[in-house]
């Protein structure tokens, strides 16, 4: 990313030179959140929906529970590692290269930028925000870059012209015009008062996160002996003998380098006689309740996590006994993921970049471009060609009409078609109407200025104008005094 983009972004002061002297962020775990969570409403302990404090807690949810953190990480890295391509209907290499440069420099670096973007998308109700940075503050000015904005610093405003207020590190607010910001939200609210705020994946699984964290904490403490597991009443054993035995065992283990946490309380008791056989009575404190199946709980939680994130559950829980799953499973999962939650984000991202950032003729697509993709395209070509071929042989279609069909189906480049016999009135969400006479709106390369001055206006030197102003300053001041004298205002 060029310095120019950062300089013109509302985030320009966020990484200022004195940042080292700025505030220090410390991520704290749930144990220290008592102050925040105390007294807040709701059974889940979260502050009210729509508040920044709720998002602040949700954004840190991966710090609470390992499996959730892994699932979020997996969902995000799958998206950030997706390949993409840029096409231009007019075959303009200049526009394609400019668009590629800009996207590669998204928030400094595409992969890191999209990762930060998706964290906000999945972990805050406010959603993720992208600033469209322009060359100047003039409306419709040339787009020079894209910046990811910290969701916790973006306030949604019920103002269509200026929908977002950004608060930078110095506490200064920047109103972002609608044309300069793209707001994403997972499951946006239908209530107008929420101004497009969503219901993020972390919020949807919050109670599951808490439950699973409690289960895992329970087992961790049980295994590590950090809590008292049981009380043992041992009869007919002298307290001194018991202490000696435990100490001897401890010294022996220390000598071997073992560390053992003991989680039991042993209470020696002596009965009347001294020759009776020692007996033990145990009161369990940390047994698993009857009927509780931790494995089943984990599977259910995984299913809930996967549904919330919009990834196949097998991604975070491979088929049993198959390790990382099978190849067939992977292909099926990839296809299944087309309809899952993050597919909606991919579609939103493609539409936003295509229609709001790139020039009229340029389109952005996610496309891994791996061998399997190419194989799929070859299969489609073979399938469509196989269907069209017999129609040509039977005289139903002429070869030029068949070519038209293949172009319409998108399996052959339109450049091979001399004239389109079925000019389409059909546009998909990512297609753009190509109209030679249509002026390009907000474009990356050629942007008409909002107000052009006539070309024949003469240039004037500042010094000449300054000389005129100097000559008239006194007369102007006299006029100002005159009108001030006529005015009732003081």
């Amino acid at each position, binding site marked *: 990313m060029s310095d120019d983009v950062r300089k013109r972004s509302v985030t320009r002061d966020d990484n200022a030179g004195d940042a080292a002297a700025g505030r220090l962020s410390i991520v704290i775990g749930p144990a220290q959140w008592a102050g925040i969570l105390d007294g807040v409403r709701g059974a889940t302990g979260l502050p009210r929906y729509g508040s920044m404090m709720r998002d602040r807690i949700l954004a840190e949810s991966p710090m609470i529970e390992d499996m959730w953190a892994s699932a979020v990480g997996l969902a995000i890295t799958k998206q950030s590692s997706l390949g993409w391509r840029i096409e231009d209907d007019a075959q303009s290499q200049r526009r394609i290269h400019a668009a590629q440069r800009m996207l590669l420099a998204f928030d400094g670096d595409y992969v890191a930028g999209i990762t930060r973007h998706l964290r906000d998308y999945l972990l805050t109700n406010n959603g993720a925000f992208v600033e469209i940075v322009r060359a100047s503050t003039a409306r419709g000015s040339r787009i020079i870059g894209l910046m990811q904005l910290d969701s916790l610093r973006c306030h949604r405003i019920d103002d269509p012209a200026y929908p977002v207020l950004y608060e930078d590190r110095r506490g200064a607010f920047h109103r972002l015009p609608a044309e300069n910001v793209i707001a994403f939200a997972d499951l946006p609210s239908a209530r107008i008062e929420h101004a497009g705020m969503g219901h993020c994946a972390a919020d949807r699984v919050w109670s599951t996160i808490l439950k699973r964290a409690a289960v895992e904490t329970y087992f961790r403490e049980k295994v590590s002996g950090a809590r008292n597991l049981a009380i043992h009443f041992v009869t007919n054993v002298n307290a001194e003998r018991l202490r000696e035995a435990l100490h001897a065992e401890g010294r022996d283990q220390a000598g071997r380098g073992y560390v053992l946490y003991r989680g039991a309380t042993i209470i020696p008791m002596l009965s009347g006689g001294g020759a009776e056989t020692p007996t033990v009575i145990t009161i369990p404190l940390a047994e698993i309740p009857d009927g509780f199946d931790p494995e089943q709980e984990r599977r259910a939680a995984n299913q809930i996590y996967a549904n919330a994130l919009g990834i196949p559950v097998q991604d975070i829980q491979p088929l049993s006994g198959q390790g990382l799953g099978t190849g067939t499973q992977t292909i099926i999962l990839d296809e299944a993921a087309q309809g899952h939650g993050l597919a909606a984000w991919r579609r939103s991202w493609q539409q936003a970049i295509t229609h709001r950032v790139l020039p009229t003729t340029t389109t952005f697509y996610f496309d891994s471009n791996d061998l399997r993709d190419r194989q799929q395209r070859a299969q489609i070509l073979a399938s469509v060609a196989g269907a069209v071929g017999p129609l040509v042989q039977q005289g139903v279609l002429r070869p030029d009409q068949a070519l038209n069909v293949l172009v319409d189906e998108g399996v052959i480049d339109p450049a091979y078609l001399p004239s389109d016999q079925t000019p389409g009135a059909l546009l998909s969400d990512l297609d753009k109407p190509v109209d030679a006479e249509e002026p390009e709106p907000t474009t990356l390369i050629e942007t008409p200025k909002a107000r052009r001055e006539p070309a024949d206006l003469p240039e004037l030197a500042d010094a000449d104008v300054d000389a005129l102003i100097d000559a008239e300053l006194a007369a102007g001041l006299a006029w100002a005094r*005159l009108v001030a004298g006529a005015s009732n205002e003081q």
Partner: protein
Amino acid sequence: MSNDAIRLHALTLHEIEAAGALLDAGQTDAYIDAVRRAIVRGHTAATWSAIAQRDHAGRIRDWLMRAVPGARHARTERTGDVAMPRADRDRMRELATRELRYFERFAREIRSGQLSPARIKARAAMYAGAIRPTYYEIRYGHWDIPQRLLPGNQQCRANCRCTISVADLGDGRGLLTRRYSPEADHCSECPPLAGTYTIYRRLR
């Protein structure tokens, strides 16, 4: 509410119309020079007045009396005199330059002799209207005011008699009130624009 912008507009218009005598006398260059000076004087007057209204409410006349035109770019604290702030002067120069560039092109047409005196006078009078946007720009430049609300940006252009004022609400917002004078001739755009609007301080 201050009507200074309207009064300055009227003063500038009067100055431009008075210069018409030179044109009638066949002194074209003198006429062009007089109109040019009237335009610049109007802009400087608008700037002085707007600064006084903006920064020195309650002691406007006092501040204007202490202002020294020659003291450029800095306050002269020792003498108690005040000067035009550099930022305002630069902005005014920008706005005046834009108008002067249009005027220089107009001056070429005047010198070509293709325009009738009546037409020249009518067109020259329109330059007085540019004083008001300058006044509003300097006075309310720290507010983000939609262009369509600024008097002079409607069909009636320089003849617009509407006024605006901004009350600071203290939380980054301001209440803009746009008024029009019912007795004045007005275009069809102005009456619906009269009213109050919430505006915001410029932040970038």
